[in-house]
């Protein structure tokens, strides 16, 4: 898959993982593991980019005697998810068209 496209999809996946409430790095990786392959090395730059673009906020809190960072989605983050879903409908229409053409070619 094109790197830019994959990056964009992963960003929205992370935002979706935060849409039900705040979360932390490892929990996000675990939540997304059935759907996308992602380790912390992929997640870290994504979180940084999303924080930089105002799609999420970060707060540190104590957990078991150490600090843990919790990420929360912002209104901009929700807007990003909505815009991704709208744009993806166009992509799916094109996908159906291409897939349909291939079916005709096979026949």
């Amino acid at each position, binding site marked *: 898959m094109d790197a830019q496209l994959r990056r964009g999809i992963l960003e929205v996946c992370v935002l979706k993982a935060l849409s039900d409430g705040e979360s*932390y*790095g*490892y*929990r996000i*990786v675990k939540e997304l593991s059935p759907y996308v392959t992602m*380790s*912390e*090395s*992929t997640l*870290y*730059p994504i979180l*940084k*980019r999303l924080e930089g673009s105002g799609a999420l906020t970060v707060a540190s809190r104590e957990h*078991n005697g*150490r*600090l*843990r*960072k919790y990420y929360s989605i912002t209104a901009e983050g929700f807007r990003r998810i909505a815009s991704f879903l709208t744009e993806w409908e166009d992509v799916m229409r094109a996908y159906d068209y291409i897939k349909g053409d291939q079916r005709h070619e096979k026949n």
Partner: protein
Amino acid sequence: MSMDEFLAQLTHRLGYLPYAEVKKTTDFYREAIADRMEDGMTEREAVAAVGSLDDIVREIEMNLPLSTVVKTRVEDARERAKERRGNLGLKIVILILTFPIWFSLLAAGFAVVFSLAAGLFALVLAFGAAEIALIVGGLVTAVLALVILPYPGLAPRLMLSGAGLLMASLGLLVIPVTALMEKIVSGVFRYTARVVKRCILRGRGTEA
């Protein structure tokens, strides 16, 4: 690899970045490893699961702004120059003697890149200007033809006003074209920045 070894190696590999950035990164991975250990993994399993050092460093570098990469590269070069101070005199002499060659090549390269960038900007600017001129000029013509101009009879006034509206609608048609041009040009700039960054980072990798 233990967590301490992993974090020490990560700190070393990112040593050229500002301290705050390195600390933020190591804190993130320390937390990720600790979370995985809390979940039942051994320390070594947790370190292996967060990703390889090469992947981590590559991801971080590819996400750095171009300005940081260039600044880092300049600082690297300065550090290396300090280390090899013994040959500094000779290098300066060679640089001065070959100045007509490298400077003209550098200036030509800069001129080509600059003119290409200026050309692309001018293209977007031209479309934008055409769009504004057509819309504003068209609307003004449409209104003035009916209200102010001293044409005898209604027909020439209506014709001129219609021509004005046609101009304005042409201007509206140019709006998506301008937006597309803007998108293409910004895409070209972003792609160029990525290629330059990749070249610089590859250069660093081979020299390290």
